[in-house]
């Protein structure tokens, strides 16, 4: 029998699903009407988004002075939010690209939504540098285009410009990766559509996908190569984000550990956000048979490992500050842990290093309520990490007379809330209109990893023993 998989592997698709069941279950949230909870959450998200637009309008029409920044702390919530959102984005690419290269079949139930999360959160991240420019209509000045300012080009030595290239490459490549994977699934919805309007819309979105054998061959090759390209890309993006700090000469920023530390932190926060979103989505969209407890458990394990890497990085930073013998460096870290922002530092430590350690216990990492709670805690902790790195390193600089504190204004808070609203507006619209699980990919593993077929195989044990591998394609002579 083809599709052999060891019986000790737990099924990835539970509930006796056939191909037609997969189609129906994944088309259901798109075809059915929205329920009351969806409208309620959507309304809240939309209000938050509109409030954020109001705050952005106020900032741009009045000036950056409406934020809580001062001459000592020139970067605070804006860049904290930027790094936080970019970091969240990393899990999507990690799941779809890195786990594809590692042939992890469990990614198939979650990659679509994780990639959607990536794209929507990178959009939020991109807003902050543009707003912080103060004159966003001049945002095109970051591009290397010929100009009349004495041919004043952009500075390719600057990590801020590297960021422009890294983030835009990341966003655009993630988008085509996501869309290419969506084509067969849009085609599935198109072919089921009843109303001419839906047929038309999904016909356009599916680019006329027909599913020829040759198309599938190319599709798989393109997916594999994109995964190969996206893997170093995702690592480069947060590495370059960390260069924004690491290439400076600010104590607390000027450390060589930043690139791996930021990448691990990004994966950590991204998986936490995937868990937050999917634990709710599997319930609302009735996808418990596809996004199983096993999926949540595996994501919790990734959270535990990356959380531990982040913990090691925190401690290494402290050690290196002491070991360097540089007074300014030592003070920056002493001030973080014991100074006026100690509450932020210890919140970060508790949320990011301590809380994921609960995942060593199987009972806890397979508990949905506990996983959801930890995912929120980690999201908060990772926001604090960026706040601690940015604000505590700046607020006490080389001249004690300029030492000060940072407190956000309602505008700082409003823009942050606005991006959370915008993110959920996009995600909720996505959950109602897009196939939220890569159904074609799930179908391709249904025979090997579906509950129904695994049981069928195990009830006829002799069929696997006749051939060397049990695979008639691999051993046609048998």
């Amino acid at each position, binding site marked *: 029998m083809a599709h052999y998989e060891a019986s000790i592997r737990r099924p990835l698709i539970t509930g006796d699903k056939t191909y037609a069941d997969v189609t129906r279950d994944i088309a259901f949230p798109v075809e059915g009407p929205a329920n009351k909870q969806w409208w309620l959450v959507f309304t809240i998200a939309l209000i938050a988004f509109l409030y954020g637009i109001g705050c952005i309008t106020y900032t741009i029409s009045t000036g950056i002075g409406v934020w809580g920044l001062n001459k000592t702390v020139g970067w605070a919530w804006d860049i904290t939010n930027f790094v936080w959102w970019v970091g969240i984005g990393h899990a999507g690419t990690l799941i779809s690209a890195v786990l594809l290269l590692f042939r992890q079949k469990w990614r198939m139930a979650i990659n679509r939504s994780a990639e959607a999360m990536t794209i929507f959160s990178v959009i939020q991240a991109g807003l902050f540098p543009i707003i912080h420019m103060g004159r966003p209509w001049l945002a095109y000045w970051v591009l290397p285009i010929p100009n009349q300012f004495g041919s004043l080009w952009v500075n390719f*030595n600057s990590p801020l410009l590297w960021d422009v290239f890294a983030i835009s490459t990341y966003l655009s490549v993630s988008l085509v990766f996501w869309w290419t994977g969506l084509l067969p699934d849009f085609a599935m919805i198109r072919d*089921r559509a009843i109303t001419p309007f839906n047929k038309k819309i999904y016909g356009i979105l599916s680019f006329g996908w027909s599913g020829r054998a040759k198309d599938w061959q190319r599709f798989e090759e393109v997916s594999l190569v994109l995964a190969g390209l996206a893997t*170093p890309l995702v690592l480069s993006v947060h590495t*370059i984000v960390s260069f924004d700090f690491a290439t400076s000469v600010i104590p607390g920023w000027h450390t060589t550990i930043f690139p791996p530390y930021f990448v691990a932190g990004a994966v950590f926060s991204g998986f936490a956000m995937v868990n937050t979103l999917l634990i709710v989505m599997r319930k609302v969209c009735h996808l418990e048979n596809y996004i199983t407890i096993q999926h949540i458990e595996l994501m919790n394990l990734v959270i535990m490992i990356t959380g531990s890497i982040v913990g090691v990085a925190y401690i290494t930073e402290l050690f290196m500050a002491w070991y360097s013998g540089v007074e300014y460096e030592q003070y920056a870290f002493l001030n973080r842990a014991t100074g006026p922002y100690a509450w932020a530092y210890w919140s970060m430590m508790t949320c990011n290093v301590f809380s994921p350690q609960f995942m060593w216990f199987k009972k806890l990492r397979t508990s949905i309520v506990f996983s959801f709670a930890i995912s929120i805690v980690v999201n908060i902790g990772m926001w604090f990490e960026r706040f601690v790195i940015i604000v505590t390193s700046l607020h006490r600089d080389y001249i004690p007379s300029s030492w000060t504190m940072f407190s956000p204004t309602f505008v700082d808070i409003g823009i942050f809330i606005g991006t959370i609203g915008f993110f959920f507006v996009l995600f909720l619209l996505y959950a109602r209109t897009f196939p939220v699980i890569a159904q074609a990919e799930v179908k391709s593993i249904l025979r090997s990893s579906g509950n129904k077929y695994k049981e069928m195989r195990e009830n006829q044990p002799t069929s696997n023993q006749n051939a060397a591998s049990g695979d008639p394609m691999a051993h046609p002579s048998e």
Partner: protein
Amino acid sequence: MLPLVTQWHIQASKTMATQKIHALYNDDAILLLAVKKIREQHYHIEEIFCPFPVHGLEKAMGIASTRLAVTSFLYGIVGLAVATAMMNYIMIEDWPQNIGGKPSFSYIENMPAFVPIMFELTVFFAAHLMVITFYLRSRLWPFKKAENPDVRTTDDHFLMEVDAHGEDLESITKFLYDTGAVELVLIDKEDH
């Protein structure tokens, strides 16, 4: 596997006509074995429409492997060249500046600072141009009309187009059912 439904859609054939049989399968393992058997009998499989990628199908059908990965590699080299030429012109030739004391008189000395952008543009070109090539080769774009003959091919059925021109319909029908087809449709089209 027994035939479930038998349908014959025969349009009146007047002059020269191409006859095709659409054989539907509902199991990818059976489909793979069927492809092998059909090719052994020297029937011609024109196309197979699948709801998901069936591993080994293109090999069984005798489809040549795709060279999209090679194009991606070549596009990546183009991206690297574009990045190098662009930054060499902007930072070294057109307007060299002293930025933080970094060397600005030769590309190779200043190169370490340019590595991130050289990498990003390599990936940008390799990814986007490969995807565009894929879309063009597979004829995929917005407003393109879908060409799968049966809507079930995006759900749970595999549709095989077998050339039946000049074949004995009765024997090929029986043969296809024996390979595990669940439904056969005769397509009788006039040539234009």
